Structures are given as structure tokens and as C-alpha cells.
């Protein structure tokens, strides 16, 4: 920690992870960012001690193989190295070229001092699930059945033991997207707290015959004064275009 009392500059970065790169793991992505920031020669703050690490904090892990149109990362910069406006303005141009194909910076904001960490702040995520295994009517029926259920009990492993959980309260939104968006595409808003409801668990609960051949996280939401707010909202064009990219 710094002893001077000055406030270090923190940036919150929103980025996409799509295509082949989705097969990298959460740890891989952390390493990719560390190296990209070094290559961009950005004045990233480092921890002290025997093994200094760049001060980066990542949001909720994205499972290997899932894509995302809204991943987040907080970057601490060295005190006084850059002013906030300059850092925000130049960050994408400096860092984006250093990222591999499929990882794209979407937005950068300065982070107010004392902000919650991403892990604390994000309460729900919206997912697009491209499903196979049932025809479109079957998918609609499974969604209706799930929404009508009072409780959906699944068995999960917790600390090495099987535990029964009702996942129904974790399903905050569920709809089949209209035809044209692609057959069997479901949009779901799932809770991240107190435990994350994973898309694979939802698919299993919808119908054992279903299989998600593509999973895309499209939004991460926080609560502010009782209202849902996206961590960093994008202009409408930017959010719509990627939806259109979801393959039929």
C-alpha cells in the first residue's frame, strides 16, 4: 500500500471475449491482460513484496468455452503517472492492439474511490443460450414450465458434499427470443448472489434433452438505489450489433 495518502487512479474496463479465444480459461485471460498491459507500457501499479504482481482485479469468472459481450476488469495505475481523463482517453488505443483476436475493449471509465469490487457489485448476469436437443416448440414449453414452477431443486456439490438447492429464485428473467434471432435462442437473467446460478445448471433444469451449443454473457448488472444498472452501459448501437452476430 502507498504511504503517501494520495489516491491511486483506478480504471474499470469493459471488454468482449468472442470466437476462438473463448476456449481460454479465466486464469489465461488474467495472464493475457497482464502481458498486454506490459506491452502497452501502461504505468500499472504493482504489489510489493517478494513477488510483485500487477494490481488487476477481475470480475466474475467466465467458464471456459463461454463467450461474453460484457466482461470487466479493474486496473490500478501508478499514482500520478497519468491523469484520469488522459488515461481513459488513451487506454483503448494503447491496449486494444495488444490483445489477441476476439478480445476487444468496449469501454473504459475511471472508478470512484471506495467503489465496490466487481465481485461484490455484480448481482445478476444476462445470458444468451443457443440450445439444441429439442425443436423450437419444445424449447418454448420448457421455458414456460420452468417459469411456472414454484421451486426447482437441483443437487450441487458444495465443499465435497452433495447439497440440494432451489435454483428457481435465481432465475430472474427467462424468455425465448423471437424467431429470426435463431431457433432455440433463450435469454436468461441469472443471479450471481448469494451463489452464482450457472447457465449449464439452468439448461439442465429446463430439460435434460437440451444442450447449449453456445453461451454468451451479454450483460452484468448491479443494484443502485433499488434499480438495476449495467456496470458500464454501452451506447445502443454497440449493444445491438453483437446481438446480431449471434449465429442462427
Amino acid at each position, binding site marked *: 500500500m502507498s504511504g503517501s495518502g494520495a489516491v491511486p487512479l483506478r480504471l474499470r474496463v469493459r471488454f468482449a471475449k468472442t470466437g*476462438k*479465444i473463448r*476456449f*481460454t*480459461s479465466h*486464469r*489465461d485471460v488474467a*495472464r*493475457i491482460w*497482464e*502481458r*498486454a*498491459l*506490459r*506491452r*502497452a*507500457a*501502461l*504505468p*500499472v501499479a*504493482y504489489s510489493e513484496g*517478494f*513477488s*510483485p*504482481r*500487477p494490481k488487476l482485479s477481475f470480475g466474475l469468472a467466465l467458464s*471456459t*468455452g463461454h463467450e461474453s459481450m460484457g466482461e470487466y476488469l479493474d486496473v490500478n495505475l501508478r499514482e500520478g*503517472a497519468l491523469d484520469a481523463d488522459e488515461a481513459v482517453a488513451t487506454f483503448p488505443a494503447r491496449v486494444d492492439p*495488444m490483445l*489477441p*483476436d*476476439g478480445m476487444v475493449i468496449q469501454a473504459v471509465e475511471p472508478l470512484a474511490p471506495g467503489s465496490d469490487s466487481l465481485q461484490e457489485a455484480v448481482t445478476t448476469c444476462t445470458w444468451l443460450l443457443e440450445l439444441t436437443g429439442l425443436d423450437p416448440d419444445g424449447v418454448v414449453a420448457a421455458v414456460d414450465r420452468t417459469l411456472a414452477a414454484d421451486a426447482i431443486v437441483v443437487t450441487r456439490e458444495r465443499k465435497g458434499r452433495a447439497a440440494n438447492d432451489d435454483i428457481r429464485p435465481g432465475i430472474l428473467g427467462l424468455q425465448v427470443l423471437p424467431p429470426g434471432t435463431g431457433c432455440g435462442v433463450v435469454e436468461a437473467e441469472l443471479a450471481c448472489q448469494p451463489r452464482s446460478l450457472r447457465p449449464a445448471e439452468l439448461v439442465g433444469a429446463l430439460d435434460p434433452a437440451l444442450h447449449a*451449443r453456445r453461451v454468451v454473457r451479454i450483460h452484468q448488472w448491479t443494484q443502485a438505489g433499488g434499480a438495476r444498472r449495467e456496470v458500464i452501459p454501452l451506447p445502443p448501437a454497440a449493444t445491438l450489433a453483437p446481438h446480431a452476430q449471434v449465429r442462427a
Partner: protein
Amino acid sequence: MAQVNRDIWAELEPHLADVEKPARYIGLELGAQRPAHAPHKVSWLLTYPDTYEVGLPNQGLQILYEILNERDDAVAERSYAPWTDLEGVLRRERIPLFSVDTHRDAGAFDVLAFNLSAELTFTNLLNCVDLAGVPVRAAERRPEHPLVAAGGHCTYNPEPIADFLDFVVLGDGEEAVGEITEVLRQWKAGGRTEGSREQVLRELSHLEGVYVPSMYEVDYDGPAIKAIRPRYPDVPERVEKRTIADLGAWPYPRNQLVPLTEVVHDRLNVEVFRGCTRGCRFCQAGMITRPVRERPADQVRTMVEEGLRRTGYDEVALTSLSTADFSGIEGVVKGIVDGNGPSDDPMSCGNVSVSLPSLRVDAFTVGIAAQIQKARRTGLTFAPEAGTWRMRQIINKLIREEDLYGAVDSAFSQGWRRVKLYFLTGLPSETDEDTLGIVDLARNCVELGRKHNKNVQVKASVGGFVPKPFTPFQWFGQNTVPELHRKVGLLRDAARGNRSLQLTWHDPKATLVEGLMSRGDRRLGPVVEAVWRRGGTFQEWSEHFDLALWESAMAENGLELDWYVHRHRAEDEVLPWDHISAGLHKDFLWQDWQDALAEVGLPDCRWTPCYDCGACTGYGIEHVVASPVPPAGGSQGTGQDLFRSSGVPVALTTKPPVGAPS
């Protein structure tokens, strides 16, 4: 014939979520290329026959990848052995082996070129060729099939896999790949017609450093080899390895690949020299890569600086067979460490650490290590290789006990708490006293450490010795599995009760098969094939290694493990690799073997007269050392007294090293 435009990615993608670590198969690394294929370009698929994690860092493969892609008439992509889960998917879904760069069908390349760094990967080579849809036996391939090639240290005796290889590149590949490309370009232009395969292979056999196994015939006399002869008068009787004279002319890799997922040696690697003159008699790498060719210190500095900036790595390894011997080591290390202050330089965003993968055993080396490893002093590794001075004279690893203790004491006193020591057992004329000397040394190191810290740890790692071709020990009969087990047992008993001393050992059964492949001949082809056909892949991996597969395949082919592995060879025996030359005179090696048995050491020839091993004189080049002054550290930690004359068998006058005052 394989379809050229098959989109393997589309076929592969739906299955990747079901396999372990799918990032191994996606490519996209920093430095990865997407070369444009064209009918007039020769396409190479450079394949490492083990997992991506093991194969990606291979520097030889990366060097050739760049050199080939810089040519107008070649393209190169990369491939690695798919893990067993993906192999199952590929076979079930009838998807061929593919390149990770553009996900192209391996069978659509002109050359499948393998890097062979370990004998136990031989069956993986067959598996990759088969997954590419290519017949595993060279004789069954047709004009439309790729040529299957190999290079790397194991190819100095490629005979056990001669049946499966169309051609072999011996030694440094930097220049040879271009010459091969030119021959193959003509072949392609000629339409790869019926019968042209044999013709192009014959042409390749005329290139220096290229060995075409099918152009040679082996005559046997009972179990012994009578003669190995070329089939045609225009094919050389002996194939000489390739040697590049000036490492400074080849500053590769320029764009080292930076993987997206975890691999071994995940750091910037800069090769500081090639070759070694220490003359350790067990060490094949040191013998076959002679002469020493240093990279100019300024070029090393530039490659480190530019490499760190380009890759974003925070660690750089200065690689060679003995990096503390690099004549520019102090200056280079100082440059990296000093350029490590707080500034906006990317190299300074956090600390850059330097690693010397092959530490010399002396206090000087520890001093260098202390200079670069200011923080996090956890472990240092040394390789005394044998437990007694007698044994170390036999293997010519001339480290005195004082050198080791000086190094270890220096390490513990400067804050390191763990020391790892590498040893070999099963060495020529090794007695139980020699074997037990390993534990004595390790125990003394523990005692030294306890003076500085109560919680020191000494780890002694023991490997069974495998005699290798082109070393003075190529005539030595390897220890049997029971004998190696017995020696490991002696060591375990002796080490028992010392909590600070940890002993680990390599599986003697794997050592047996390494020995079989290391000095085997062409009659082992059916054995390798049978083991592969019965699922014996990934034999490097202890969970997959299966000695029973090898034993039964040997028995079925009427061959004896004992004859191949444990038998001492006579001076006049024709060795399976006698038609190959690593530049070393056979009589030099034999003399060195006799010296070993007489317990006579042979000091480093860089600062003593020449022994005429053949490596320099044969190529008309001298040791290329960047500085005329012997590196700091006095005796080099070898116990070598540079001022006393040593009984050298042959004394030729050598030119002074480059840059020396005349």
C-alpha cells in the same frame, strides 16, 4: 488425396468444450502467423509430437517457423500431438490432425516435419502421421502424401524409426530448410507425378545434413550389423550434420510465440550460445552440438530488450548448455538488472527476472544468480551428476567437492533455502561407494545449509543413465532395471531419517525403453509400430508409459532387450549410426572412453590445446567465443587448472579466438 480447403475449425469447434484445456488447439498466440498458401509454395507443418504445453516453447521449431515463413517459396504452420481425449474425438468424427495456425488439414501439407527431442515420443510421431491420414510406413506413401521428416537431438540415431521417415535433417536446420524447400519446389512444379517421390528423396540425399533412410541398405551378420551401405553411388556413404558457423547471423526467434495458455518454460528465451566444450562424457547434447558458437553480447542484449518489450514477458532465460560459461555473461546480466529501475519503460513495469536454466556448480555462478534474483530466493539447481570425485573424473564432470560446497554455502548464506541437485546412477564402473556418495554429498549440503537456516531443503534427483550415440559412453552396456532399482534402494536407505533431504528418481523401466530407442537399429521399426498400434502413445508420461507393451513387441519380433540395452559394445562393432556423422572422430570417442575407464579427466578445450575431436577442424571453423578472455570464475568450477599442462592426446595449434590480440 486430402481436400485442401477443408475447414477443420468448423468441424472441431463443437467438440472443444468437451476436451481438457481446449486453448491448446486454438492458435492465436502472439507471434502466430497465418501464411497464405499457394501452389508454388512448399508448405511445412512443423509438429512437436507431444502436448502443446511441452512443444510450444521448443525453440528449434520456432526458429524454423520464422525462417520458412520469411521465404517467398515456403509457408510453415505448427501442430502438436492432441491429448488422448481430443484424439478420441478426431478418430470418432473422422477429423484429421490439423495446424493450430489456420486449422488446415495436416495431410494437405507438403512436409510433415517433426522435432524429436525425446525417444519416448517416437510412437506419438506415428500417431500424428496416422491422424494426418498418411500411411505410417514411408514405403507405402504415394505421390500425393506429404513427406515425413524429422530433426532434433534424437535424430542422430533415427534408425529405430527409419521405416517411418522420408528424410532426416541432422544438426542445425537454419540453412538446410531453405535448400530442402528449393528441391521440393521443383518437385511440386513437376506435379508430384508417379515415381517422383523416390526421385525427390534421392535428390534430397545429396544435400549436406539430409539423411534419407530408404537410400541405405543394412546387412546383418546374425544379430550384428555387417555393413550399412548407400543403395546408389550418388548417395553419400556418410551423412554429415549441418553446422551454422555464425550464430550472430541467425537472431531467431525474432518473434517468439507467446502462448495464451499455460506451457512449460513460459518466458522469453534467448539462446546465448550453441555447443559445449566441457566434454561431459554422458552428455549427448554437449558432444553433438560442437563447436561452441557464441552469440555476440550486444545481440543478446538487443534480443532481450526487444523481446521483453514485444512479448510482455516478465522473465527471460539465457539459454545454452552452460550459461555461466558465456563470455559476456556479467555484462549482459548487469545490463538487464540495471535496466530494471522504475521508469515508464515496459521492461520496468514490475521486475524482470532472469533465469539461467543450466547453472554451473561454483560460487561465481551463485554470485551471478544473486545479482539477478534480488527477491524471492527460493530454489537453486546444480548438477554435480555423480557422488564421488572418482566417478566425476570418469564422466568428465570435473567438479571438486569444494566447488559444490562453495556454491551451496554461498546460496544458503545469501538467502536461498532450497537446493536441488541432479545426479545420474548406473554410470560406467560405478561402485556402491560411488552411488552412496550421492547421499553423502546431499547430506553435507544439508549440514552447510543448517548453519544459515534451520529450514533448508536439499532435493537430490536421480536418473538412470542412458548411453547415447556420439558420446564416449556409446559402447557401454546400460544398467538393468533390477540393478537400477537396487541402487535407488541403497540411496533411499541411506537418505532415510534426514527430514531436510528429499530423494526423487526417474522410473528405471522408462530408462530401459529410452536405452532401447537410443542405440537401437532398424529392426526396432516393427516394435515401435506394434506399441503404437496397441495404444502406446504418450510414453513420456508416467501415467501412460507401459513397459509390457514394449516387452511383448520385442518378444514377438524375436528381439532381445538385453542385447540392445545391456550389452557392452566392442571397438570394431558396426554401430547402427555409423553412416551418420556428428562431426566427431570415432577414434576420439573411443580414446575418450578408454580415458574414462582409466579415470582420466579431459579439461575444457577452450583454454587448453585441441584434442582433435573433429568438430572444429571438420567444418573449418573455430570456437566462436565473443571475448578472448576466459569467463570469470577462474577454473570454471571444473577444478581445471589452466596453468598446468595436462596430458592431451593430440595437440594441434589453434588460431587465437576471434578478437584476441595477436
